[in-house]
């Protein structure tokens, strides 16, 4: 019991490491829960960067070497930043009805409770968690660093030395604090990311479009993503944080979320290999959105997203090069070796595996709403374009596949399409609930860092 307390407590300690982010002017306006959630994301980034640096310098990660300097530095930054008070501005738009707010609260809390129960009941555990995310964390915790020598051992290639460190390091940190890896309790971390996503997305939407809009979008988003995470067996793996970072990264980029943009883009890259691809798609879509969308993402936000993406990528790539880890997957390097004749089969197999825990309804409803609200496509432009681009990317990606499609896609598609589902739901929600004139005002107000 004590170890479980320490293991979970270690996750909350990350709030301290990321505290400065909660005091950034653009985040201070989002409310206390969103500020805590932002600190949680920033805390994960801090330990990931620290783990890479410590591993290169051969410094062992312990409570002492990690917690004391980082917590101290973070607190000093937070105290300094807390003196910079943002101008208090009332959120735009209407507060909506009391019934609407109550419906949003009940639906969201019920969904989150269901997700935590399903995760802790071991109903949705990822094989990847057992095979490599958790396995690497347990092993790294033993030696107190990213054990590159282990990852290049011939009988350890299943540990995927190529994959970025954020999720593994988050698990490692908890195992370090608790003294052991708690495999079941750790599954709850996926639910934690859903909470983080829900809280910050609600705050962003509330600040940009008003409470009624946020209350309209969030319940559907939470249910759709919660059901998908459970159905795709994403417990303990990197899927939940990736969905959280991509959604918040895109939302803050297209709506103007200040410091959240660079935080989420860096986290995206350090979470999964495809996070880099999604980050690039988001930046490309943002450039187009400056011409076609409403509101237009600021150039400052786009530069912040691109810079943090490049910095995070270079950091992990540099570590891989210095430590002799693979920087590419030999099984996935046949860029132009496409079998175009398989395109219909790829599309059919992909659609057959987009159940998302709701018999495909979350996809169908979101798409239908986008079509219904065709007159408001400008407001949904960014998230919609990224969502469709992700699906399109995977459709092309699977043209490389030589193995039976159902075997491979049946396993991968339910998990890897979740960021696309999340952004499609966001696009549909914006098209249905948000009002362009409110967005324009809100965006101007919150584009500060």
């Amino acid at each position, binding site marked *: 019991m004590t170890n479980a307390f320490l293991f979970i407590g270690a996750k909350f300690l990350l709030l301290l490491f990321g505290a400065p982010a909660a005091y950034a002017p653009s985040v201070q306006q989002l409310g206390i829960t969103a500020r805590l959630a932002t600190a949680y994301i920033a805390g994960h980034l801090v330990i990931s960067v620290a783990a890479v640096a410590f591993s290169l310098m051969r410094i062992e990660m312990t409570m002492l070497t990690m917690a004391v300097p980082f917590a101290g530095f973070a607190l000093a930054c937070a105290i300094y930043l807390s003196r910079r008070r943002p101008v208090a501005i009332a959120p735009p738009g209407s507060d909506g009805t009391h019934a609407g707010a109550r419906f949003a609260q009940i639906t969201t809390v019920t969904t989150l409770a269901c997700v935590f129960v399903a995760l*802790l009941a071991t109903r*949705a*555990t990822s094989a990847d968690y*057992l095979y490599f995310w958790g396995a690497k964390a347990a092993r790294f915790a033993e030696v107190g660093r990213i054990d590159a020598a282990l990852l290049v051992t011939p009988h350890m290639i299943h540990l995927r030395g190529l994959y970025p460190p954020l999720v593994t390091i988050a698990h490692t940190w908890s195992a370090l604090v608790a003294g052991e890896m708690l495999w079941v309790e750790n599954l709850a971390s996926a639910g934690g990311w859903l909470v983080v996503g829900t809280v910050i997305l609600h705050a962003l939407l509330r600040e940009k479009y008003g409470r009624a809009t946020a209350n309209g979008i969030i319940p559907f988003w939470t249910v759709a993503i919660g059901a998908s995470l459970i159905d795709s067996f994403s417990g303990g793996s990197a899927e939940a944080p990736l969905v959280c970072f991509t959604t918040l990264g895109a939302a803050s980029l297209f709506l103007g979320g200040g410091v959240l943009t660079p935080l989420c883009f860096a986290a995206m890259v350090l979470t999964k290999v495809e996070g880099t691809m999604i980050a690039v798609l988001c930046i490309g879509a943002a450039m187009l959105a400056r011409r076609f969308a409403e509101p237009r993402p600021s150039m400052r936000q786009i530069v912040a997203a691109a810079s943090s993406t490049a910095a995070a990528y270079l950091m992990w790539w540099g570590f891989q090069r210095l430590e002799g880890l693979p920087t590419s997957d030999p099984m996935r390097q046949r860029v132009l070796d496409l079998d175009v004749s398989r395109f219909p089969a790829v599309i059919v197999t992909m659609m057959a595996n987009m159940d998302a825990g709701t018999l495909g309804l979350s996809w169908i409803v979101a798409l239908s709403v986008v079509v219904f609200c065709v007159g408001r496509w400008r407001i949904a432009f960014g998230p919609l374009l990224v969502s469709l681009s992700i699906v399109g990317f995977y459709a092309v990606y699977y043209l490389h596949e030589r193995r039976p499609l159902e075997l491979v896609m049946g396993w991968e598609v339910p998990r890897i399409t979740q960021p696309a589902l999340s952004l499609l739901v966001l696009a549909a929600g914006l098209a249905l609930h948000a009002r362009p004139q409110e967005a324009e005002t809100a965006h101007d107000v919150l584009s500060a860092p």
Partner: protein
Amino acid sequence: MPERSREVRISEGAAHRLWTGATVVLLVIAVVRFSTVSFPATVTRATPFDYTPLGDPGLWYFIEQSKTRVPEGATVVVITPGGEQDEVAYFFAVALLTRQRVVPNRYFGAPQSEAYLADYVLAYRDASLDDPELRAVETFAGGTIIVRSR
């Protein structure tokens, strides 16, 4: 411009009702599929995948229980009946036996010779190796610890 407003207004009510109704439907599906069935399992589970179809939780449990029974630094191989789960057993052992040196009996389909030199053999259920140097020392949690006498 007036035409567009009219178009949006007509579809707006229907779309709002569709959205709210769909949220409720999705929630009901999620609750039925993932929560009601699994709630008792939050108490009864013993491994991280008791209720996920990822293989045999008994194998994980056996290896986990072996953690403190095999000396640190010893070379260990896990074998399963007919060798069918040897690869998965190796993956589990790498995750769980972090203080021992785990070697695979089979890796990506290929038999591994290193396994025949392991100090300890964790034999799940009735798995066995035909080797006169091996001696069973303890049976528990559905398997046996076998030590190599040199």
